[in-house]
């Protein structure tokens, strides 16, 4: 379907409003605090990028967390060596992860299907293993790469030397990148990233990528050099991951190897599939659900539950707490596992399919209305 640019603009505006208003509408859900909001935005960027590759081309990469980690490392090194202004760090992070994506993409895209997946997995695991141990001089291994008081920070010390004995903090021309300002910064970049992804979805390039997913052989016989298309998409999505990684470092200047482990790559795959592969909004819904579970569900302990049911009569509240408590706190993995199964069994297209179904049901009664629910 060809989107008119007016509807494109409308989608973007609604998206921007929803994202920027997150501190308000997430308040009743207990998720309106800077760190989680930042994570929503950053992982949003990560999955948008991942979805541009996986969603459009159908190539299942199992190593995208590598680019996230590399972006973080590059950004932290930029803070250490050059300046704690986040802008150069982000650019540097994108470039370095772009380089990694180019190399890994060049190698892995020689194969397709499961062979491609395993190649990306293998390369990613090598990067992770080395970062955790042998490359400790560069990555600081287990204890994560952090800024230190005696770092060079050449640009900063040239312009205005750091005073005081604390660590300088990351900023954007004086605006600190922690707390809400950090969130708004990430949110703005998320909106720009989303805009770019809409454009790609609606561009000839996006169509060509989807055609590769649909029938790569026909693409070749129609005169396309599909490998360059795949490579470009891989590169773009690797750079998105690098952007997300460097933003992670920008709001919280620390980079650890765990960010690159296969489980981290698996997480972005799960987020994308859970939300809805190849849809614009779906993967971000996946981010919302998984990050919400990880941060909020895991924090409910017995007492907290009892308190939140306190509006009920005591025996009922206790009974409810007894029933619910295996699924929260230390049981949040269990709930997530059940959710994965339920979603994929009943909504093969992910959460987005559910949203579409609900929307279809409503629109039967009244005029179709854009009710984008995003995180």
């Amino acid at each position, binding site marked *: 379907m060809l989107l008119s640019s007016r509807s494109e603009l409308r989608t973007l505006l609604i998206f921007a409003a929803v994202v920027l208003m997150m501190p308000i509408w997430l308040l009743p859900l207990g998720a309106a605090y800077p760190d989680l909001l930042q994570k929503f935005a950053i992982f949003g960027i990560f999955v948008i990028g991942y979805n541009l590759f996986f969603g459009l081309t159908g190539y299942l990469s199992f190593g995208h967390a590598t680019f996230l980690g590399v972006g973080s490392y590059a950004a932290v090194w930029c803070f250490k060596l050059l300046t704690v202004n986040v802008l150069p760090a982000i650019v540097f992070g994108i470039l370095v992860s772009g380089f990694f994506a180019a190399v890994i993409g060049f190698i892995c895209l020689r194969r397709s299907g499961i062979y491609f997946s395993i190649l990306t997995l293998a390369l990613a695991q090598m990067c992770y293993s080395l970062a955790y141990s042998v490359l400790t001089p560069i990555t600081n291994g287990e204890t994560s790469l952090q800024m230190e008081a005696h770092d060079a920070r050449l640009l900063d010390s040239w312009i205005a030397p750091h005073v005081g004995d604390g660590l300088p903090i990351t900023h954007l021309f004086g605006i600190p990148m922690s707390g809400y300002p950090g969130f708004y910064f990430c949110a703005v970049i998320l909106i720009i990233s989303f805009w770019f992804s809409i454009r790609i979805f609606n561009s000839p390039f996006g169509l060509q990528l989807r055609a590769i997913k*649909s029938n790569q052989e026909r693409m070749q016989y129609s005169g396309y*050099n599909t490998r360059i298309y795949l490579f470009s998409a891989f590169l773009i999505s690797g750079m998105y991951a690098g952007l997300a990684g460097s933003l992670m470092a920008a709001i919280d200047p620390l980079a650890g190897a765990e960010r690159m482990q296969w489980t981290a790559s698996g997480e972005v795959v799960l987020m994308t599939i859970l939300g809805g592969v190849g849809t614009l909004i779906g993967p971000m819904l996946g981010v919302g659900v998984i990050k919400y579970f990880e941060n909020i569900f895991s924090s409910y302990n017995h007492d907290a539950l009892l308190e939140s049911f306190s509006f009920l009569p005591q025996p009922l509240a206790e009974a409810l707490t007894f029933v619910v408590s295996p699924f929260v706190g230390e049981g949040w993995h269990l709930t997530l596992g059940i959710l994965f199964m339920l979603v994929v069994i009943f909504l093969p297209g992910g959460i987005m399919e559910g949203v579409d179904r609900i929307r279809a049901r409503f629109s039967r009664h009244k005029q179709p209305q854009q009710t984008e629910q995003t995180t």
Partner: protein
Amino acid sequence: MSDSASIIFNIDNVNKTFGGLQALSNVNLAVEEGQTRAIIGPNGAGKSTLLNVCVGRIAPDTGVVRFRGQSLTGRTPHDINQLGVARVFQTPEIFPDLSLLQNVMISAFSKRDGAFRFSPLKALKAERQLYEESMHYLEDLDIAEHAEQLAANLSRGDKRRLELAMCLVQHPRLLLLDEPTAGMSRHDTNRTIEILKKIKERGMTKIIIEHDMHVVFSLADRISVLAQGAIIAEGLPEEVRNNEKVQEAYLGGGQHD
């Protein structure tokens, strides 16, 4: 044989074996510009193999395939297409997850932009000219009313016509058709014949592999007959029709079916 100056496509001494089975033996073929060449032969004669060799899907063991004097050996499928060779497959190769219009537009893009063009920010809908051209071909093939539908939902006959539209929109210099009317109703077949005749008027060279003799004799300027991997006859339609070897091969083939 005609004057070699107007030969656009030729196959020289091509051999191909699959695990001891001689699929093609010493095949020679020369097609003049603007000509419609039919290749016929019984099942298993090597027709599809020959076509696959033509588009670079299968590399020949020996011999050369030349298009406008350039060897196609070792070229990738997309390269061959960019030279101006398009192909309709025996089982329709389309993009099932895209709309008909998108299917055709994709082909049109490749004609206009080459094997790769990075255009992530341009809106699809801004491509008015390509859009209209693509719609035009859909109309030409009577499937314009499905333009916004997913290609996967088409009938088999319509899929073939879609594929034909995808090839035609590229204005190829050489069009290879592998049984373009298989599975079509009589009415659709006639319609396809009409369309192909119209293309002929535009001077497009075609190689058709076909079972349906009605189609072959309606369209072909010359016919080559392939049996057991070798060309056993070649000539004008009437010549071939009366050729004893051909009749024998067909009857023989028929018995084995």
